């Protein structure tokens, strides 16, 4: 079964908050749910499928289905970290194609900023039954130093430089200046990035994404329903997913799961990287973007540094406009999970509803890619190719 044309994204909503100390996690999920349904011209009563991941409060989908009083006949709480919501779009399309639901709601929300979580710089023990914990946790693996090890190895193998990585932040900041909700709206330079303090060498503070409260939601529906609504139709054209780990000790930090999920999505879509007009690329760190661009086929392996330099990712300037909302690097990284906002900005671009300063002209085909977990240890990858009909 191909997912090509099996479902459409009919609603998308990004919560405007970046700090929500007085709003509960469940309320944030509910607010984004209503936002996305309103965007689609639908109501809670229309929803018959619900998708969430580990950021949702309670046991899997149970608490939020109850809180929203949904009447669902299909649920899925697959959790692959920040990539979950891209994967949920694909799984929703599968469920719709199989007749299990017609209108699927996907929500994400979180409050790491209000809760004061030192997200990327503190080692987290996890569940003691997690099989890697006793072999890794005592060494102090954090999100930041695990991605930093990918950068160290990439620099060693391919000669990638901190200045090249910095261009990714520079491009994101050029986009974020137009986003009134973005946490970091100031345009930065390569020098600003490389002169910011080291967090986990070789990654600097400005190589890292923001920590923000907030959330987002998507509504995925059967194509016949999508065509009946008063919104531009954004169709799922292809999807791929993968999980990459340490491969039994054959650790290879030079590539990500995008090497596997990307070609699967392109094959299903019947298009190539050269056809993509806009790309939402997961950007927990600058190195994340660089490796994903290589693995998705936008440039050769090892050429990512050259590809991103000199503004090549800036809308209206370079060949591949990316993360035109400012991305996780500047705009928003709600719940420390950047996958939802990747899809939302791709939908905006395909509808022609991105900020005019960053809107890609005639944007008919877009890619969104997400990672969850850690590129330095084990992670999920999910790639979507979306088309405006």
């Amino acid at each position: 079964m191909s997912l090509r044309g099996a479902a459409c994204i009919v609603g998308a909503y990004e919560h405007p908050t970046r700090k929500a100390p007085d709003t509960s996690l469940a309320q944030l999920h509910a607010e984004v749910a209503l936002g996305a349904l309103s965007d689609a011209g639908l109501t809670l009563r229309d929803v018959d499928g619900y998708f969430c991941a580990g950021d949702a409060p309670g046991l899997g989908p149970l608490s939020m289905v109850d809180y929203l009083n949904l009447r669902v006949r299909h649920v899925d709480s697959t959790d692959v970290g920040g990539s979950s919501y891209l994967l949920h779009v694909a799984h929703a399309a599968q469920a719709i194609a199989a007749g299990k639901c017609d209108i699927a709601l996907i929500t994400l929300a979180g409050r790491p900023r209000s809760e004061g979580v030192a997200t990327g710089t503190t080692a987290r023990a996890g569940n003691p039954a997690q099989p890697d914990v006793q072999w890794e946790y005592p060494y102090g693996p954090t999100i930041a130093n695990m991605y930093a090890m990918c950068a160290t190895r990439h620099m060693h193998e391919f000669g990638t430089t901190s200045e090249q990585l910095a261009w990714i932040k520079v491009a994101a900041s050029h986009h974020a200046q137009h986003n009134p909700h973005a946490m970091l709206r100031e345009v930065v330079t390569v020098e600003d990035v490389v002169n910011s303090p080291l967090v986990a060498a070789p990654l600097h503070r400005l190589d890292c994404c923001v920590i923000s409260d907030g959330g987002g939601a998507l509504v995925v529906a059967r194509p016949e329903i999508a065509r009946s609504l008063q919104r531009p139709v954004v169709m799922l054209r292809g999807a791929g997913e993968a999980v990459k780990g340490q491969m039994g000790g054959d650790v290879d930090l030079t590539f990500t799961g995008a090497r596997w999920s990307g070609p699967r999505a392109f094959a299903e879509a019947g298009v190539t990287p050269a056809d993509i007009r806009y790309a939402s690329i997961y950007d927990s760190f600058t190195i994340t973007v660089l490796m994903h661009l290589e693995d998705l086929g936008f440039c050769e392996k090892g050429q990512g540094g050259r590809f991103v330099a000199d503004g090549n990712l800036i809308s209206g300037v370079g060949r591949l406009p990316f993360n035109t909302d400012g991305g996780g690097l500047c705009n928003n990284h709600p719940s420390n999970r950047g996958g939802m906002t990747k899809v939302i900005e791709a939908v905006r671009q395909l509808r022609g509803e991105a900020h005019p300063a960053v809107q890609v002209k005639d944007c008919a085909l877009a890619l969104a890619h997400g990672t969850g977990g850690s590129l330095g240890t084990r992670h999920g990858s999910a790639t979507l190719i979306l088309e405006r009909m």
Partner: protein
Amino acid sequence: MAGRSIPFSPASPDSAPFWQAAGEGRLLLRRCDACKRVHWYPRPICPHCGGATAWQEASGRGTIYSHSVMRRAPEPYAIAYVRLEEGTTMMTNIVDCEFDAIHVGQPVRVIFVPRDGAPPMPMFTPEAAA
């Protein structure tokens, strides 16, 4: 070793021999009886072929595959992947050295660093500093 306290994490039912050997200053690996390959982290079931595995002693020598010095921490520390001589790669810390001199390909050897209330952790130090 600088002052960073090493967190404790509980052993699993199958790892007792590893931690006992660590207490004696020996690094153990598991090798597959079927495909003969070593792997990391140690499991009774081979991640390469599904075969049964058994403990063997490692030389304790390897080279740094990648590394990062965590600067945004109360006490900076160096995390690394070390490719062991036997052909598998483990996460570890690099200790007893100048952090700025740590580099990919650097030869290192295992040392065992004491922890409060738990067996010592295998960490690595540059060969030249031995």
